[in-house]
Each structure stands twice: as C-alpha cells, then as structure tokens.
C-alpha cells in the first residue's frame, strides 16, 4: 500500500494573473507502515502536496501510484482511495456538523455504505482510539472544548479505517497537554495497527520525537528527504528557509563549541541527555 509520486507538478489558476506553481517536480515514495513528517515554511506547498495523496487535488502533470495503480487513470475509484487514505485537515473541528458526536463520526463509514450498526461500532472504536470520553458521545459537537472537538474530528476520519493517515498540523492551537496526548495516541495507532502516518507540523520538537523520516518542502520543491538526524544536521540551511532544528540540537552544538566531547546529532531531549551522560562517563 505504498504511495508513489512521480514528477508531480501543480500550478494554481494557470493562465491568470494569480498563476503560481505550488509543486515542482516532486518524486517520492511512502511505504506502508512508515511515520513520515513533512515540514516547510508557510506557503511551501505542504498542504498542496498532502491533498494529492488522496486525489483531492489533481496534479497538473506527473503520476501518482497508490498500491501500484495510477490514480489519474480514467475509471479509478477515487472514493475507495479516499477511504484508504484518510486526510485530517488543519483545524478539523471546523468540519463537524451533526447533532451529536457519535453521528458525526458515523458520517465517514456511512458514506462507505456500511450498515448503521457497523457504522456505530466503528465510530465507537475510533472515538476510543483517540481517547474521547464516552460520556460525551451523545453531546453536540459544538458544545465541546477545543481539544475534544479536535479528537472527535480526527475520530471522524479514523472511523473509515484508513490504511494511511495524513494529518495537517493536528496540534495547531492546542495546549501542550492536548498536543502531547493527541500525538501519543497517533503514535500508538501507528505502532499497533501498522498504519502509515504522514504528519505535517511546524514544531521541530514534535517531528523529531515521533517520525522516522522527514520531508522538507521549500518553495514547492523537495529540499531534503531523510531520517531526522540527517535532516537536522543541515540546520543552517533549514534556518535559511525559515525553519530550524529542535532546540536540543542547538544546545548540543553549543556544548561542542564550548569544548565538551559530545556528538551533535541528538534530536530529542532523551537522546541529548543520554549523550551528555555518556560524555561525562567517558
């Protein structure tokens, strides 16, 4: 169930004054079970890129293969693709519309043509997965707190049982606790169901903590595509395009500059602590 992009180009409003090339010759492959992070400054083409994964946007040129099949071929079942590649937009709570939480989460499965019982079963399962308290199942989604709304909306996508989950800044506007809880639950999902997770984020700390691979976007082009350590080693270049490395990377570089014998490739606080301890013991 891999997603493979070949020379994808996307141009907004071609032939008008607002013409803009949002994606330039993107080629990449995401394999089943990967946890991929996508970073890039505002307007770098991240959101445009992820909307190609489930066929919401059609590339101006290039090909996209899901599970080996070209999705731009005529007669390709887009609806099926969209239930396999679940896309959680930024501020997904803005899409809630039903009278109670459980019916809203049922919307996706219902569109897949499942029976009412099966829908509710899946909805409950999804709500449990995101840690949504059962006592609010019958409450109006508009009366929930921000964090709970976000969970309900993510559950709305999970209820379709996608094989790939794409999240566009799932933690924007949440407090640190809500952020950690949601990301931990996503990681749990990834580990236990072998679901592919693609996470778009502005937080280098979050990215460094959870993902196995980072894709860096810059002005519609793929700038880096590697494991976090390798990507954050280019922290000077990242700064030039308005990004940064996790704070601990800077601390490690500073320690090294002050004569401490440490490796500078730590990207999480735990790794850094271990590395500093090691240098003391040596």
């Amino acid at each position, binding site marked *: 169930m891999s997603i493979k992009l070949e020379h994808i180009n996307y141009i907004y409003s071609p032939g008008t004054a607002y013409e803009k090339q949002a994606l330039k010759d993107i080629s990449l492959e995401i394999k089943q079970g990967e946890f991929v992070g996508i970073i890039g400054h505002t307007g770098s083409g991240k959101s445009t890129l992820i*909307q190609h994964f489930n066929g919401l946007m059609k590339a101006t040129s290039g090909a996209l293969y899901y599970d080996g099949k070209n999705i731009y071929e005529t007669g390709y079942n887009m609806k099926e693709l*969209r239930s396999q590649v679940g896309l959680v*937009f930024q501020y997904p709570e803005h*899409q809630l*519309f039903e009278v109670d939480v459980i019916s809203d989460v049922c*919307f*996706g499965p219902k*569109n897949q043509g499942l029976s009412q019982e099966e829908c509710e079963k899946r909805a409950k399962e999804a709500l449990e997965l995101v840690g949504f308290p059962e006592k609010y199942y019958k409450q109006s989604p508009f009366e929930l707190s921000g964090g709970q709304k976000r969970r309900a909306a993510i559950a709305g996508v999970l209820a379709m049982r996608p094989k790939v989950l794409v999240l566009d800044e799932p933690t924007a506007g949440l407090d640190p606790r809500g952020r950690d809880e949601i990301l931990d639950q996503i990681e749990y999902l990834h580990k236990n169901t072998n679901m592919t997770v693609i996470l778009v984020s502005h937080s280098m700390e979050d990215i460094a903590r959870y993902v196995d691979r980072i894709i860096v976007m810059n002005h519609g082009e793929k700038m880096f595509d590697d494991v976090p350590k390798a990507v954050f080693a280019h922290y000077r270049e990242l700064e030039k395009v308005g990004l940064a490395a996790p704070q601990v990377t800077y601390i490690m570089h500073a320690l090294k500059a002050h004569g401490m014998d440490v490796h500078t490739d730590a990207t999480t606080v735990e790794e850094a602590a271990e590395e500093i301890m090691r240098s003391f013991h040596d």
Partner: protein
Amino acid sequence: MIRDITIGQYYPAKSVIHRLDPRVKIVCTLLFLISLFLQNSILGYVIATLFLGAVICASRVPLKFIVKGLKPVIMLLMITVLFNLFLTREGSELIHIWIFRITDKGLRIAVYMAIRLTYLIMGSSIMTFTTTPNSLTDGIEKLLHPLNKIKVPVHEVAMMMSIALRFIPILLEETDKIMKAQIARGADLESGNIIQKAKAMIPILVPLFVSAFRRANDLAMAMEARCYRGGDGRTKMKPLVYHGRDRAAYVVTVAYMVLIFCVGRYVPFHIWIF
C-alpha cells in the same frame, strides 16, 4: 471549484484606470450606463464601443477576463434577445414561420438590447476589476455623505458593505476547505437527484454557518477592542483627494456624454445596416 467566478473580482495591474479616484470610477461608470440608454442609433453605439474599448485598453485588464465575466449572465441575455426578437409585433415583417414572426423593429430592438446589456456588464466589471472592494466602498461612502443630513447612516452602511465584500473570498475559501474535508470523508456531492443533492449540502452548510458566525463574532470583538463606535467624528487615514487625472477623467466622460446626447438628438439620419 467555486473560484472561477470573475464577476466583481479585482484584477491587480498598474494602469491609469487603477489609480483613478474610486468616486470618479463610480460616477463615470454610472454615466456610461446611462449613456447606453440615451441613444438609439448605430453611430451612438460606435462611439460607445470606442469609448469602452479605449477604457479597456487603458485599464490593462485582459479582454479575456472581461468577457469571462459575461458568462453568468449569458442566459439572461439570451432570454431578453429572444423575447424581443419574437414578441415585437410592430414594424414590417421579415420572416414568418408558423407562429414565429420576426419584424425589422423586433430585430433592431433585440440587437440593441444585446449590445446594451453586454456593454452594461462590461462597463461595470471594468470598475470592479480596477478598484479594490475597499476603495470602492470608500468612494460610495464619500459620494453618499450628503445623505447623512437626512439621517441616513451612510458610514454604517458602507462599513457593512466593505465587511460583506471582504468576507466573500474568506467564505469562498472556507467553503472550499469544508467541501474538501467532507469529500475526504467520502461525501458525495455530485450524484443523486435534487433532494439527495440538497441533503448532501447539509454537511457543508452547517459548518459554514457556524464559521461565519464565529468570524462575525471575532470581528465584532476586535472592532470593539479598538474602540470602534460608528461614523461620528471618525477621520480617515487616507482621505480621498481628487488629482489632475481624476478631473481629466471627468472631462473626458462628460465630453463623451455630450457627444452621445448630441448624436441621439441632432443627427437626423439613422443609419441602419438592414
């Protein structure tokens, strides 16, 4: 998807027309629209065409864009033309097939109506293409300012207009986003009969209304936080001032009006092509 609507859109470019005072553009557009209905001769339409063509050239908006703005009204245009063509009973008969009769007068009225409506839309879209919604409402506010004397809340109305205009692109974007989010959840917006289609709109309309109210609430709060209290005693950061080019534009338009009026009144011969 819904972003292809060009009518009422602003087209950024650097041109004399773009730089004109919005008041000039509003008044001159109105005068131009009136001029279309003041005369009834081929010569008059030739002058109107030349005037409109010159303005379009000066505005540097591609003709393609202006023509695109005609699309939404093409049905209205067709209906008007057909009704005038077939339902005018006066004049001498040209063609008579079954119950359809076309008279020379009917044909003339139909053609003139088509030209008038087309120019009407092109003329007004030139104004919206070259003026940002904000300066347009600024212009309207200033033009209607005298109405304040008879207790018309001009400033408030203008503020409401500019907020409404400002929110059109935001709500369009929002609709686009919500549509995509629901399509990603498997919503089917295209197939089915009219009732199913209407039902399929609920998952889009509910979040859209919620977001419109949320945004309205936020905006009201932000305005109050900056001590907004309506138009009384309010001054402008960039007050509208007439420049030389604005006066020149008035002169040109008035000259055009006089010319059209004279042609309609005093040129005795009507040159018909048919």
